[in-house]
């Protein structure tokens, strides 16, 4: 498919390599440690599992305007996009390269850094740790969080969430730790996946097969209302790309202002939000939507994205 036609494609349907290629400027993407390198998991064969030549993640570098954009794009079709040793190391590798590139850009363009400042973009599609190599996957998550802290004050890290598997488990907090989050209404973000909540709390409390319940609790529209998603876009590659380009065109400080955690002040705001959770004790996300001034919360899931964005009331940045 051509780059132009790719832009119109559903983000949900696109595979990791298509997303990586089409999110950055046309023809600018170079894959690093791609399938030709055949860097596969050393652990899966022992368990009798098939390997993938990219270990379920496409990593590389592209450009948006004058800016190098380092891309991590996870592939849900391979073991649910779960993170093992190689997959995790590829994520860490991208951050290392981006931090080096930042150093180079800061030296070369001290007066015009915003135009050349590298960015990291993560297109999430994962449930977190890969059980087959769980310990290595776990340690890789800690490394990625460490890297994200290293980027603070240097370069933006942007999350894109709109793929089939969603973004759960440890990667749910990795996404939360990034600077800005772009989602489509089909995107799913959380810590504990729906099946695990059902297992822990019982089906009457949380029925994981109830798709609208899952969407109301973890979906892009809910996260947008809560300010946990900064930008809500249509489910197209173009939708995500435009939002990404617009965001990166802002001064870096504006991107940092999208953060929800990562400072004492933000933690205090989140603590106010937890107090509100106690006060409201919502049985459903709709109770929270109503609290924020959406008089007919039951209608919100049905609305087209543009209409939703026109009518929705979000959490004010100050909780009360």
């Amino acid at each position: 498919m051509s780059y132009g036609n790719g832009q119109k494609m559903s983000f949900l349907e696109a595979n990791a390599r298509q997303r990586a290629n089409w999110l950055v400027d046309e023809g600018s993407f170079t894959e690093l440690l791609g399938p030709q390198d055949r860097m596969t998991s050393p652990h899966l064969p022992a368990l009798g599992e098939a390997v993938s030549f990219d270990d379920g993640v496409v990593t590389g570098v592209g450009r948006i305007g004058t800016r190098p954009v380092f891309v991590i794009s996870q592939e849900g079709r391979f073991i649910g996009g779960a993170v093992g040793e190689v997959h995790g190391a590829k994520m860490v590798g991208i951050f290392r390269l981006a931090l080096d590139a930042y150093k180079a850009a800061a030296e070369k363009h001290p007066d015009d850094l915003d135009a050349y400042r590298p960015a990291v973009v993560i297109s999430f599609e994962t449930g977190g740790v890969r059980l087959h190599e769980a310990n290595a996957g776990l340690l890789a998550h800690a490394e990625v969080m460490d890297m994200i802290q290293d980027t603070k004050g240097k370069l933006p890290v942007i999350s894109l969430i709109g793929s089939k598997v969603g973004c759960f488990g440890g990667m749910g907090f990795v996404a939360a730790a990034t600077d800005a989050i772009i989602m489509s209404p089909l995107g799913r973000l959380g810590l504990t996946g729906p099946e695990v909540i059902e297992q822990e709390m019982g089906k009457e409390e949380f029925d994981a097969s109830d798709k609208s319940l899952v969407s109301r609790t973890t979906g892009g529209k809910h996260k947008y209302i809560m300010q946990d998603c900064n930008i809500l876009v249509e489910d197209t590659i173009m939708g995500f790309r435009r939002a990404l380009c617009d965001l990166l065109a802002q001064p870096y400080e504006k991107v940092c202002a999208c953060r929800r955690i990562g400072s004492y002040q933000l933690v205090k705001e989140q603590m106010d939000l937890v107090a509100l959770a106690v006060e409201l004790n919502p049985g459903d996300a709709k109770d929270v939507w109503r609290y924020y001034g959406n008089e007919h919360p039951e209608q919100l899931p049905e609305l087209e994205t543009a209409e939703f964005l026109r009518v929705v009331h979000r959490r004010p940045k100050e909780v009360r």
Partner: protein
Amino acid sequence: MESMIGRGRDAISMIVDPDSFAENQVGNVQVPEGYGPGAVVGTASLNGRPVTILANDAQAVNPRFPVVYFGVIGMEEAYKMASAVYESILADRDKPVGEKRPLLLIVDTPGNGPGKVEEIFGMNKATGAYQLALAEARKAGHAVIAMVIGRAISGAFLCHGLQADHILALPKECGTMIHVMPLTSISRITKMDIERLEELSQESPVFAAGVDFFYRLGGVEEIVPAPEGMRDALARHVELVEALKREGHYEQTGPWSRGALGAERGGRTTRPEVLRRMAEEFAAVSSSYLA
């Protein structure tokens, strides 16, 4: 051997100077009584020096969030711990590296709060916030040392432990458990025979449960043979980490250094190869990206 599971408060007493622990007091801030009861935070002395304590209380339940019991870290708990970390950074912001108060994490937690309200309000943010705070403290020059006394399970270990400079653990004979999932669950999910998995786990530490396997992967710096040794071991690792930081060797502690340790101990040998080849491939094209 004596098990420390569920005994976070006992562990604090065994580690710090006698009667030195002031619960809920960190820097200039008093944490409200009863907030996030599954987490214990406060200030104590270790050989006369102030340290910030961050521990789990497996005996406590959180009346506002019923998923918090037996050491689970819920939203209040994670933000309470994050606040204690930020207060520690603030209190010592003008002190040089080496004089900033160490942060001691006493780890005995089975998980992060799983629940509907948690997901509606974003438990992912709470655990992420605490991890970022710890990483910030570590990079600001505080020594951050984790002591696994009981359970360090999956995401909860990421939340409370894996951002430390150094991680110590009591041996498996004390009942210490470090894992993502027990082999029985891995067997159920991967549909692999449990006997076969047990056999494989002898050669490959990468999915098996246990302190020794994490040690081989570089996920644990040192196994402390018995609970009586915790105090001295923590004090020694505070010194080691501070010495490295005074010299500016920040890459020789924390998650990144545990990667190197994992290769050294033969548990994670592909990781360095991945990093090396990515850097090499980027170097070949970098001139067209770094204008």
